[in-house]
């Protein structure tokens, strides 16, 4: 365990050095994040110029949801996203072989190699957005937030990590699939709005097989005081299941790759 922490330290340091070297990309990424966030904020204003609430979420609530959504997205993009995105290409040009021949967990090596430090600053903006939304709207009492919010955010993060890994593990099966990240990006994008607008069936789906509600809405609900204890306990269970499935699928895919490649 300590060894992996040491490895993590080295990899994070390397990503930091890279960020310093490619400073233009660093600033671009921050600008880019702010522009998208700005667009979504404008869209919320447009929507709410015609109504007071959408599926029980007020303008202030939706701003909180946007902030939470962006916060989780930036957590992922800042840590495992760029690392795991490389998987299909690593398989395609044979670099995966080297990674598999090393006495370290390959999933760890792949996911931890590309941290994006630019996202750290954007996360601050996300927190600001959340704070703004909570100020102009409702907010749950502090003691409930402290208990519930971290659990839900961590669960959401683990589910995101697992889903991203699941999708990219397909790189072992299909040759040309290096834009599979777009599938996750598209699905994830839906969750900046309350999934209730899609109706009961989709909402059910988003609580189970495609757990967008669990990932994004639950943490926002916790901040707004709209979450039940059952939901708070449910999220880590979903996270554990997805993590186990993703891990199993990865290991199965590696075995198949080594037999068939």
């Amino acid at each position, binding site marked *: 365990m300590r060894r992996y922490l040491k490895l993590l330290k080295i990899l994070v340091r390397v990503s930091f050095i890279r960020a310093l070297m490619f400073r233009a990309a660093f600033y671009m990424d921050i600008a880019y994040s702010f522009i998208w966030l700005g667009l979504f904020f404008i869209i919320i204003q447009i929507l709410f110029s015609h109504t007071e609430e959408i599926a029980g979420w007020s303008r202030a609530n939706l701003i909180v949801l946007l902030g939470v959504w962006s916060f989780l997205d930036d957590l992922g993009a800042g840590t495992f996203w760029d690392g795991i995105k490389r998987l299909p290409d690593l398989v395609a040009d044979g670099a995966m072989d080297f990674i598999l021949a090393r006495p370290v967990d390959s999933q760890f090596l792949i996911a931890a190699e590309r941290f994006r430090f630019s996202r750290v600053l954007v996360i601050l903006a996300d927190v600001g957005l959340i704070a703004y939304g909570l100020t102009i709207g409702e907010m749950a009492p502090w003691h409930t937030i402290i208990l519930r919010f971290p659990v839900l955010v961590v669960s959401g993060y683990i589910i995101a990590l697992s889903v991203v890994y699941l999708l990219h593990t397909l790189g072992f099966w299909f040759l040309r699939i290096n834009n599979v990240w777009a599938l996750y990006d598209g699905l994830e994008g839906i969750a900046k709005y309350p999934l209730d607008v899609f109706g009961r069936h989709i909402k059910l789906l988003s609580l189970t097989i495609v757990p967008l509600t669990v990932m994004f809405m639950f943490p926002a609900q916790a901040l707004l005081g709209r979450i039940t204890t059952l939901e708070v306990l449910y999220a880590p269970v979903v996270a554990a299941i997805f993590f186990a499935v993703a891990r199993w699928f990865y290991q199965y895919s590696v075995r198949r790759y080594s037999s068939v*490649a």
Partner: protein
Amino acid sequence: MPIIEVKNLTKKYEYYKKAPGLLASMKSLFHREKLYTEAVKNISFTVEEGELVGFLGPNGAGKTTTLKMLSGILYPTSGEAKVLGHVPWKREKKYQKQFAIVMGQKNQLWWDLPAMDSFILNKEIYEVPDAQFKKTVDGLAELLEIKDILDVQVRKLSLGQRMKCELIAALLHQPKVLFLDEPTIGLDVVSQQKMREFIKTYNEQKKTTILLTSHYMEDVKALCKRVIIIDHGEIRYDGALSALIDKYVDHKVITVTFTKPVERVDLEKFCPVMECTPLRAVLNVPNEEVKKVAAKILTTYPVDDILIDEVPVEDVIRRIFTTGKS
């Protein structure tokens, strides 16, 4: 106890046939023909500790596939293998810490950072103690003459320098077994030679078992006492390089230069003439008759210089590949 034991190792690949043209592309949307190829067919061999064995064969012969199986990267279709007592494809951490694989032209180092940073990562991955790490890096850098480029970004280095860094990265954890896949490919002549010297020295000093694949004859000639020739997935020859020549070559080559022109027809009375210009001839002479023919030529013709040489190993190998029989 041999360090590497391979018994009846076989690897079959399946692939899809793809014909050119638009119509074929359309068709391939619905149905693709699956084909099989046997990259490695039932090969067996053993390697003792400290040996430097060369795997020689044309492209696609199965050399890289064999190395990949021995490093645990690929599972065989059938057969067994044991390296250092471990089954490679079980990918036991204990085994992985004892071997290293370097593939020519394939980069394991981080491209945009100095090689030293990649070394530090490897140090942690293989759990190399600090003192040993420093000693190993310093020693190898000295031997390879690259002490001053370890802090230069890898992408700014020449291919030769990069390969040297790749070697250091692979040898940091003092592996007992080293797999080198085409290590000199793409290098300039000087770098190739330096690489060969290093491998030879390292093998002699550390007694590391080294398996080297190449399609360059020079690599094998310079480094390997023992050579395994592999072609179309089968082993055609496994033994000493010198014995190879003895086994397959029943003649020597005599090159004669004359002071006065000599007719080809005259020479042909003795033996097959390979080349003939008025003042120079190259003859193929059966081993038993070499002394006799040489003496005869020296006494009969105005000879300026005479050279008795081995058949180039390349020709021997080429013959083995084209005839396909061992």
